[in-house]
């Protein structure tokens, strides 16, 4: 297992340090000991096949499921903290299902994320990144498109001057154009706040992530610089079950040794189906890989 540090210079203390995280749900052992570090800057990608325990790891870190093991956030052990108390120490969380309150308006969804007594909410930033949320302030969140709901979810994480943003598959099921938009926002957010990103879209990981942690069967299987892993087609195939990026790539880095074409449609080419580094044919009407870069 390699270390999570990358780049030259002294290894800074991780912002979030997870050691031996175990979760048992309904008598089943979901996590058997996950170790991960989130560096104090940049994007750390949490990768793994479906069912590897990525979402459970995130939920375990936040205390949303009962867990054992050590979770240190900004140097403080959080084992005994309730979820809300941990989050108030500076974590923005955009969950896998987006966690948007369908019966509340967009404005109410955002207002809920305000933290009274912890500084003014940064609405200018959220509205600058997502002008649509301002226009749709009075619309019920349940009537938004998936992409708009994801904007609400990410907007909530950016409102509070958080020290860490945890985004669980923020591009899942979104249209290619929206994936690009979400990626740009995450890229910009990551300049100011470290991000722990659960993501199956390897093209997106390639674009955003500095380091990565790979889970397999509820354990940490690999830690290291993201670029190193993705440059190693064999390791990528072994660890993630794919040699190529899934779905609609927002950016297929042209300099990459195995630049990938997007799969037929979002979600169809799940990493669970080990197709190897083959490039599936692109049906008419689907976007070209480079389109999103424009």
């Amino acid at each position: 297992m390699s270390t999570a540090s990358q780049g030259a210079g002294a290894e800074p203390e991780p912002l979030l340090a997870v050691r031996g995280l175990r979760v048992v749900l309904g008598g089943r052992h979901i996590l058997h000991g996950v170790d991960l570090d989130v560096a104090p800057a940049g994007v750390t990608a949490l990768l793994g096949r479906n069912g590897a325990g990525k979402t459970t790891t995130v939920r375990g870190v936040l205390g949303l499921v009962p867990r054992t093991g050590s979770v240190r956030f900004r140097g403080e052990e959080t084992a005994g903290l309730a979820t809300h108390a941990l989050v108030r120490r500076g974590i923005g969380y955009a969950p896998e299902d987006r966690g948007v309150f369908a019966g509340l308006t967009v404005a109410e969804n955002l207002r809920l994320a305000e933290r009274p007594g912890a500084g003014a909410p940064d609405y200018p930033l959220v509205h600058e990144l997502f002008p649509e949320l301002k226009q749709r302030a009075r619309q019920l969140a349940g009537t938004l498109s998936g992409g708009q709901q994801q904007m609400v979810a990410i907007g909530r994480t950016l409102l509070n001057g958080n020290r860490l943003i945890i985004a669980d598959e923020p591009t899942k099921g979104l249209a290619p154009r929206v994936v690009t938009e979400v990626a740009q926002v995450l890229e910009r957010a990551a300049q100011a706040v470290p991000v722990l990103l659960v993501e199956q879209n390897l093209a997106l990981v390639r674009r955003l992530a500095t380091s990565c942690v790979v889970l397999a069967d509820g354990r940490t299987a690999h830690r290291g610089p993201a670029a190193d892993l993705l440059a190693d087609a064999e390791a990528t195939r072994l660890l993630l079950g794919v040699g190529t990026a899934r779905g609609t790539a927002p950016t297929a880095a042209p300099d990459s040794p195995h630049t990938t074409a997007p799969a037929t449609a979002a979600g169809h080419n799940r990493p669970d189906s080990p197709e190897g580094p083959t490039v599936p044919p692109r049906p008419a009407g689907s976007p070209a890989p480079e389109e999103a870069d424009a």
Partner: protein
Amino acid sequence: MSTVVLLAVTGLGLGALYFLVASGLSLIFGLMDVLNFAHGALLSIGAYGSWWAASGHVPGAGFSGAGFVLAVAFGTAVGTLAAVVLELALIRPLYERPREQVLATVGVGLAVPALLSAIWGSDARPFPGPHALSGTFGLLGARIPVNRLVLVAAALVVLAALRLFLGRTRHGLVVRAGVEDRAMVTALGIDVRRAFTLVFAIGGAAAALGGALGGLYYGSVDPGQGTSLLIFAFVVVVMGGMGSVAGAALAAAGVGLVQQFANYYAASGLGDLAVVVLLAVLLLLRPSGLTGRLA
């Protein structure tokens, strides 16, 4: 015609009582997934609290004029306090164990009436109410007891206050969000347990107010009143949609009216059966309740 008017107003008065119990019950279930079988006990505590205060135990309180208002306020306050104690002492420690939680509320629901019987006897205690509220007035040829109007007015005030609370305050926002997805509320950094206690307090206050005004409606208080009202309040909650205050209001009016009319025109006692039939029909046609949404 006059009979129809009398039945309608009486039905609405009864519906108002159901609403006062059901509104809190519905919010508690919607937010916390707690089936609070002790809610009828809170009503009884409100009823006996008011009766006890009005019987000369609280200075200034009585069965007439401003003293009656004070007695009702006292009973409501005692019921609210009891609800908060119930949540903190019994419900909160059992959040991870829903079965034990339900059993605990059933236990309190049985113990409180037993306690009231032990202290003040199992017979009904007269609850005269102020002179101004014990008369009747004419409406379309019917003589309507004034206390029916008091109940309806109280229910409307509670409905308006609840809607303002849910729609206009941050605590109300937290409650509405919590009804949808409690875990996500905590993941946004909000201590949802405070909302639990608040909702229990609000529900307890409404139920205790219902108990005090129920004394007015029935002309007496007895230890079993809360339990019998609770059954219909549960029907109202299910019909109105769990967690929906507006739905509870609609359903409460419907249940009260159906009960009164069926008891009068069919056979006495058939009203209760009619309510169950109504519930079954509604559940088959609209499984999510009358409105299918909150507030």
